[in-house]
């Protein structure tokens, strides 16, 4: 299997022109295998229902997990991401339609969404909720052992985001930023009303690598989205998925899965230290 598409440019230089489309199938197959193996190997965690009543004191029934803004960001990101993946890859696998204009406009919307998200994260100061620290590493190790049946120890409760979700976030962020940065440059190659055409801004080889990076990030996102949507629809994660729709989780879920000391929801312990402080 080849990893790159290459060509001889007019000066006879062998330059990359993009990533090999075989990798699309590699990403789909790896995604499918991941889902099947995970679904078969990892037992659904049954809710124990055991919560520390003392922690529940003073907490309302429903606790806000995602603000309207955060949910808006997530779904706008999701819609643009699907639009980008479909417009990018369907034509390659034979479902042809005029894709370029929809693709770059979806790309611009994604960029606006991401800018809003970054602003929101810094303005609301919840930057640290995604940060991976020592406790997350510990949580991850124990969680993995428990999942593989090598340990009876309970997986410790997480902060706002469990460590696996943080890892997804960071990898998806890198892939998305990679596609965004290269996508902006690729806008100079096509006719659009936002940026002037400037085909010869870089050498052929540099352009080639830009296309390769765009393709690698895009194909990476195929896998990431498969895995992400799979987790979102797993039964034991549905309460979290609902929170991405209606914004809240119930108190029991909160206490069962989250450490109030690491994730302080309004109305929870007054003394708990906010994560990362």
């Amino acid at each position, binding site marked *: 299997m080849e990893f790159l*598409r290459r*060509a*001889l*440019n*007019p000066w006879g230089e062998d330059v990359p*022109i*993009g990533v090999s489309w075989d990798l699309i199938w590699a990403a789909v197959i790896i995604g499918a295998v991941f889902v099947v193996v995970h679904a078969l190997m990892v037992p659904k965690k049954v809710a124990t229902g055991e919560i520390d009543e003392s922690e529940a004191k003073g907490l309302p029934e429903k606790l806000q997990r995602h603000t309207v803004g955060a949910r808006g960001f997530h779904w706008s990101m999701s819609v643009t991401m699907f639009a980008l993946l479909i417009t990018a890859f369907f*034509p390659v696998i034979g479902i*042809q*339609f*005029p*894709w*370029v*204009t929809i693709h770059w406009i979806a790309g611009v919307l994604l960029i606006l969404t991401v800018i809003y998200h970054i602003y929101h994260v810094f303005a609301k100061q919840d930057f640290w909720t995604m940060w991976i620290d020592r406790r997350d590493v510990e949580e991850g190790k124990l969680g993995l052992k428990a999942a593989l049946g090598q340990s009876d120890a309970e997986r410790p409760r997480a902060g706002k985001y469990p460590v696996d979700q943080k890892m997804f976030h960071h990898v998806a962020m890198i892939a998305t930023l990679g596609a965004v940065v290269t996508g902006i440059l690729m806008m100079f*190659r*096509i*006719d659009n009303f936002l940026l002037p*055409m400037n*085909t*010869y801004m870089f050498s*052929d080889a540099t*352009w*080639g690598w830009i*296309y390769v990076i765009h393709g690698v990030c895009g194909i990476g996102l195929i896998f990431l989205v498969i895995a992400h949507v799979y987790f979102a629809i797993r039964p034991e994660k549905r309460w979290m998925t609902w929170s991405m729709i209606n914004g809240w989780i119930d108190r029991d879920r909160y206490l069962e899965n989250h450490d109030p000391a690491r994730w302080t929801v309004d109305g929870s312990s007054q003394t708990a230290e906010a994560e990362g402080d």
Partner: protein
Amino acid sequence: MAVIRDMIAPFELYQPAGVDDAVRLMDQYGDEGWVLAGGLDTFDWFKDRIKRPAAVIDLAAVDEIRGIAEGGDGGLDIGAMTSLTAVAEHADVQSRYPLLAEAAGLVATPQIRNQGTLGGNIVQDTRCWYYRSGWPCYRAGGNICYASTRRAMNREHCIMGADRCVAVNPSDTAPALVALDAEMVVASSSGERTYAAADFFVGPDIDIERMTVLEPGDLLTRIVLPAPREGARWYFEKIRDRKSWDFSLVTVASMLQVQGGVIQDARVVVNSIAPYPVRMGAVEAAIRGREPSEETGQMAGEIAVEGARALRHNDYKIALTRNLVKRSIRDAA
């Protein structure tokens, strides 16, 4: 520009004697196979060693798709391997489809028309020289268009229908067949399909590497002309750099159904201004119910170039299109 080398890269040569055999071979080789008709487009690519198929399937002996026969419903059936000369000189084509006879008769030179086939003329690739020099542009699977940059030589390129690629469809018979509402019959290992001529051509927005719907393994077998319309008027004009022979700069083909001095129905098609023959739907709608006069022609010309965008060296095509469309309505006879 292009360095023509006389030695063609080696390939397996097949000379099937029937459509079934041809299709089976084409299926077997997929995108490694190449259909050879008259060779006038084909041998350019081969001699430049830009296209190097593993197998060439020569249709010269497939007699069942050569020749012109009476079709069903009073139409005409033209085999894809019929030479352009045969099309241009056929008595029925001349009397019933003079638009097509004219178009075929204006292709290149007598020698080329003797050798070139109607099928090959329709399916032929674009003449964009960056592409034909073997440069790795979008159409060749790359990631750049050399013809749309600021310093590019693009006098012959398109003024509409571009999507990264700005090449044009060079065929003279294609716009005539779209105007005549012909059907293209395509055979492949999965059976036979038929396309309206207007749907047979593909723009780069849909597929930047193809000019037509044909995929590897697809063989154009016949072109079916519907019965000529009573009292139809037609117009064909090809503008080229040299009168002796040359590819078209802009070509117009139109068919008007005029009754009581009023246009009842129209098909107006312009080629070499886009990567596919452009059927001017807005023009057709606007001229229906009007007299084929100077005034209607003028209006049609203006509508025809709405949204047209010139590249650096081809704004003359906008004026040319405007005028040709005008004439094609005013002067249709």
